[in-house]
């Protein structure tokens, strides 16, 4: 396959159509249909077990839906090679998932290295700068020697270094203390002003969803309750659940 590598230029559009997924008796997703526009940041919000991580992981085929279709730029994901797809989609876990036996620079250079790009290390340094880390200071350090916030910055840099079309973030700031979290959120907002990559952000923090997401999607027991700009959800909640969730979030 000789598709040109996608640049950071707005990214790809995502679409899930009637997607369902069950684990045994547990319904994780129940006929969810949602669009993410190119360059948009969608915040997925809901309680534990609401299906938000399952939906997120169906965008890089780490989860295969039982029914329904997921598309990237109108191409069904099922028609794409999962490994090639994942190299175009950045991914950050709550605890970073950095390879403990690789130095920071090698971790960040992972995707360019997998794509056999000759300038993988230079791209890694560029990505480190993007998340506010000095490559000369951090490039040769081990993940264990970093603070929690630094580790998440490195994970974010790793997700960006391959110039992805889509960025998937699974509670990336969830394990951090309040101050560090605020700093990383600022970094993220700054990042998005320079790099308009399509982003899906999973969080259970309503305030974070409101601050970072262009739109919010509320999931409850595998069903989509409401999708829209934060202000709309706050001012015109479609269900009492959405109303309660948002009221709780903003009153904190």
């Amino acid at each position, binding site marked *: 396959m000789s598709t040109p590598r996608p640049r950071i230029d707005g990214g790809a559009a995502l679409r899930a159509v009637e997607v369902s997924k069950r684990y045994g008796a547990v319904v994780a997703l129940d006929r969810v249909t949602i669009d993410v526009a190119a360059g948009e940041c969608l915040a997925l919000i809901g309680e534990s077990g609401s299906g938000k991580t399952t939906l997120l*992981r169906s965008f890089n085929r*780490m989860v295969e839906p039982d029914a329904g279709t997921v598309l990237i730029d109108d191409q069904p994901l099922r028609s794409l090679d999962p*490994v090639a797809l*994942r190299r175009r989609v950045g991914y950050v*876990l709550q605890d970073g*998932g950095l*390879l*403990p*036996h690789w130095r920071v620079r090698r971790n960040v250079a992972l995707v360019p290295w997998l794509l056999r790009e000759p300038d993988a290390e230079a791209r890694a340094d560029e990505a480190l700068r993007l998340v506010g880390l000095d490559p000369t200071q951090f490039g040769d350090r081990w993940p264990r020697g970093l603070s929690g916030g630094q580790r998440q910055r490195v994970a974010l840099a790793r997700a960006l270094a391959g110039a992805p079309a889509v960025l998937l973030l699974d509670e990336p700031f969830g394990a951090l203390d309040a101050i560090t979290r605020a700093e990383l959120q600022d970094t993220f907002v700054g990042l998005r002003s320079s790099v308009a990559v399509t982003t899906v952000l999973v969080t259970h923090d309503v305030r974070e969803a409101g601050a970072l997401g262009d739109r919010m999607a509320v999931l409850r027991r595998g069903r989509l309750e409401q999708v829209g700009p934060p202000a709309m959800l706050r001012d015109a909640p479609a269900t009492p659940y959405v109303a309660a969730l948002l009221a709780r979030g903003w009153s904190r």
Partner: protein
Amino acid sequence: MRTIWTAMMVTMTALGAPPRPIIVASKPFGESYILAEMMAQLLEARGRVVERRLGLGATEVAYGALRAGAVDVYPEYTGTGLVAILGLPPERDPAAVFARVASASMARDGVRWLPPLGFQNTYAIAVRRPTADSLHLATLSDLSRVAPSLRAGLTADFIGRPDGLPGLARTYGIRFRAVRALLPAVKYQALAAGAVDVIDGYSTDGLIARYDLVVLRDDRSFYPPYQAAAVVGPSLQREDPEAVLVLTELSGRIDVGTMRRLNRRLEVDGAPVASIAHDALASLGLTAAAAPLDDAHAGPAAPPPTSFVAYLGARRPAILADTSRHLLLVALSLGAAVLIALPLGVVLTTVPRGAEGVIRVAGMLETVPGIALLAFMIPLLGIGVVPALVALFLYSLYPILRNAYTGVRNSDPSTVDAAQALGMTPRQVLLYVRLPLAAPVIMAGIRTAAVLDVGTATLAAFIGAGGLGDPIVTGLALADTRMILSGAIPAALLALAVDGLLGGVERWTGRRWGTDRR
């Protein structure tokens, strides 16, 4: 390649293979060593090349090796042949037993019993003289009365074989209060020290007189006659009938008095086996009395050094040779086990089910006692280094397999998840993530296997594979504590050294790849 091979074969055939050495073996007790050494020296005096495999496991190992062609000759006893080897009912008449055993062994195994050497060595159930006096013990029937209050220390062989404890229980109704399995070498000390009340000795043992023990009479004639004789395997009979004839020169020449005297020289005086055998052959007129003793067989001509350190110094070349053989056994078996078990453990992590079953099979091998596993090997692989390597290899599999499987399978899930989600192929995940993360656990498995291997390899001496078990087995058979220690101490140090070395490698892999990085 093939032509070269053919050419070599043709050349070898044309030149004629060098004469194969005659392999003389013994069982692991002093009398057997002396008789085997006499056979070996006699063959050497008649111009044969001899290889000694002394102290082989026990009856199963020695006779199994003879039958399989791995041994050519060793001393055995007709009663043992009748009951333990052929599984026939005991009989009383010595000549009848010999005839029976000789024809049955030849028919079943092609093994030939040469005419008996001239003495019987029966089991001698012995007690301390004060015990005999106070309890009025003279016969085995007397013993059956008081046995429920006595503790017996018996050789493992005797406890199991039909002409041993089970037979005593059947014939005399003897049931001891407790039965403890003891090595032949420590039985007498244990009895003398009062740790046990009854032992099974041999009637020719030099120690019965030395410790002033009372041998209880077999008043119901339970024991079959145990006439000592050379048993000869099929290949020697076929290849060198002359050598078989040479061995018959010993037939009828060693009476019970002579054998007791030889045993006493070994057990009480601590004389080297080679000089005892040499002197015995000379006094029987079978070899020239003046024939100088080859140094390698004679042992130290001067009185043995008195201090243990001096003794170790004198034995240094032998200890070094045993240690390097030991290391060779461990290194080869461990290397092969790593080559097989490591990839297998990794492959098993990718199969949906059945992995636990495969690993459990390897685990079950671990529960087979070492000497039993070695005995099973004899019909397939004979004796010596090859079966020892195979047995050690089998013992090494489990720890390596288990740790490789568990280590790779349990590598940190979120690290693996991230690697997959960022586009590593399954092969890349294995190579760059799972294996490096599992490296310290894998190393720990290899280290466990290596230390176990160093210990188990001492058993290899029972099937003639050498190593540091050699002085241990010989020392146990000859009741020579210093010789035991000259094998046991280097073996223990070797285990510590291997553990320390691989522990260092394990920590290094931990720092290099694992989780304890700073």
